């Protein structure tokens, strides 16, 4: 049973906005997704009805707020197949989740010369935290290279991960759309005794996710890319791993006891959630995963594969050799993220031209500068799709690209 995209679109208030009397074509969901009314209403209801600080209050509002928060945690745990809700640690975004892991696990498990393996297609959120540990601890970074078609080149995997303490790989590239073989890499990592971390920021929003099947020890992802609000992200980790990790931020809620002489830490998940949590945002993310579940993640993925196939076909048919789509050629092996190069028009200019027709795409390095260096470009123009996009959006994109010819005097 396939999804009714027109009906889904109607669930997203922003998508009915018009600018200069023309509809908006939102193709920047890899950057941040739009939000269904169900998510906005859940947060609004929380504030208008149950707002109070959590965990500590005996009065009814505080109980309702705590129940709402823990209910959302359970929903999110279920959504990613986490065995225990207390393994879902709330952070402000995926970036904080990666830093939490790097600072807490990293500083307590790594020392000079220890090896962390990344890939050439990582987002800065999975690079800079490790550079910081290179500076602080003298660890060594190794990089799994990519092929010309934008896939991980695993030929040398065994040599690369030999002796590694950690392997950290994005489950899906935010530039190329590549879906990486996380299970295979995780198994190889475990075989050499390394811990496996994955960046699920682009994966969790778009594919059915089961952390146990992925075989990873920890995963970071971010709320605003999966129909949820800003200001909320998640680090998931196995109970065993998280229990062995020292705290990251210190303050209220993460303690068991505090005296002038020291402190002891609270149980999971509180140990890693210092201070007042992003309560409304957690509630909103809970509503987002419930919305996605109501569509069915299999269906969401199916729609995106077919829309990606349509987009690749359309763009190739209309622009031929003038247009390059970076990344894997096969829609089933990638997400709906299309990094484009068109003639000699710079991505930034392309994005400006498209904006004139209300087509929203992103131009730039997409926080993946090392990948840009490997690709030999300064930037790409990236159109990215989600469950609310349809073939008409793709056609609008193609029309807008065509209009660039006129402006840049490239027309036949």
């Amino acid at each position, binding site marked *: 049973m396939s999804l009714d995209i027109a009906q889904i679109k109607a669930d997203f208030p922003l998508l009915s906005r018009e600018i200069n009397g023309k509809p908006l074509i939102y193709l920047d969901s890899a950057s941040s997704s739009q939000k269904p009314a169900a998510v906005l209403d859940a947060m609004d209801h929380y504030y208008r009805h149950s707002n109070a600080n959590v*965990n*500590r*209050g*005996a009065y009814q509002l505080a*109980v309702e707020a705590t129940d709402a928060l823990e209910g959302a945690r359970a929903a999110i745990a279920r959504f990613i197949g986490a065995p225990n809700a207390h393994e879902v640690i709330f952070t402000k975004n995926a970036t904080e989740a990666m830093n939490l892991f790097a600072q807490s696990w990293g500083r307590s498990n790594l020392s000079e010369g220890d090896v962390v393996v990344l890939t050439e297609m990582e987002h800065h959120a999975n690079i800079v935290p490790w550079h910081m540990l290179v500076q602080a601890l003298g660890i060594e970074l190794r990089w799994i290279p990519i092929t010309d078609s934008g896939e991980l080149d695993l030929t040398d995997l065994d040599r690369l991960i030999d002796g590694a303490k950690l392997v950290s790989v994005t489950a899906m590239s935010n530039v190329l759309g590549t879906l990486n073989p996380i299970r295979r890499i995780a198994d190889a990592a475990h075989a050499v005794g390394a811990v496996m971390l994955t960046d699920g920021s682009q994966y969790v929003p778009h594919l059915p996710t089961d952390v146990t099947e992925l075989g990873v020890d920890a995963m970071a992802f971010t709320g605003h890319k999966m129909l949820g609000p800003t200001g909320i992200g998640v680090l998931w980790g196995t109970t065993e791993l998280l229990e062995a990790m020292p705290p990251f931020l210190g303050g209220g*809620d993460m303690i*068991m006891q505090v005296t002038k002489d020291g402190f002891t830490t*609270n149980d999971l998940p509180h140990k890693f959630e210092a201070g007042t949590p992003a309560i409304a945002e957690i509630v909103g993310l809970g509503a987002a995963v419930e919305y996605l579940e109501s569509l069915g993640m299999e269906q969401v993925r199916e729609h995106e594969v077919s829309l990606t196939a349509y987009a690749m076909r359309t763009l190739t048919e209309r622009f031929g050799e003038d247009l390059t789509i970076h990344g894997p050629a096969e829609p089933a092996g990638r997400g709906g993220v299309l990094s484009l190069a068109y003639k000699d028009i710079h991505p930034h200019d392309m994005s400006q031209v498209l904006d004139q027709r209300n087509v929203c795409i992103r131009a730039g390095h997409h926080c993946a500068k090392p990948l840009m260096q490997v690709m030999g470009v300064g930037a790409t123009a990236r159109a990215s799709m989600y469950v609310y996009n349809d073939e008409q959006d793709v056609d609008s994109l193609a029309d807008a690209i065509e209009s660039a010819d006129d402006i840049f005097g490239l027309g036949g």
Partner: protein
Amino acid sequence: MAGLEDLYKEIILDHYRNPRNKGELETPPAHKAEGFNPLCGDEIVVYVDIDDDGVIQDIATGGQGCSISQSSASMMSAAVKGKSIEEALAITDGFKAMMSIHESGLESEKADTKPDLSMGDLSALKGVVKFPVRIKCAVLSWNTLLQALGDAARPS
């Protein structure tokens, strides 16, 4: 909606005002464990003195907290004093089961139809399950008892 009379039973207030077995025991021979409720700040200290036959010869509790955590500690001490470790564990299980009725559905008032665990005074705490945030108060001393017994069981 649950009324406060379900929570603050006479017998609970009596244990709160006149706690049984309040104090300390010398360690060793006694084993000591400390429990915290990190949310509200309640603290319980449990001392158990176990003889060679595995019987809780003496027990004492200290710390501070609300009427529920303090009365529960007092009742706990009275309930397990003179009992074998096995008996104490069984009573603890029974008590914690009573406290988790909430999770398996409070509304149906299963609480009253459950097999009587002959909990004596302890059954006065049954009403706590209607106030879910207070369950942690009621079980704090019992978890601390488990810690102390665990300590005692560990070869020193």
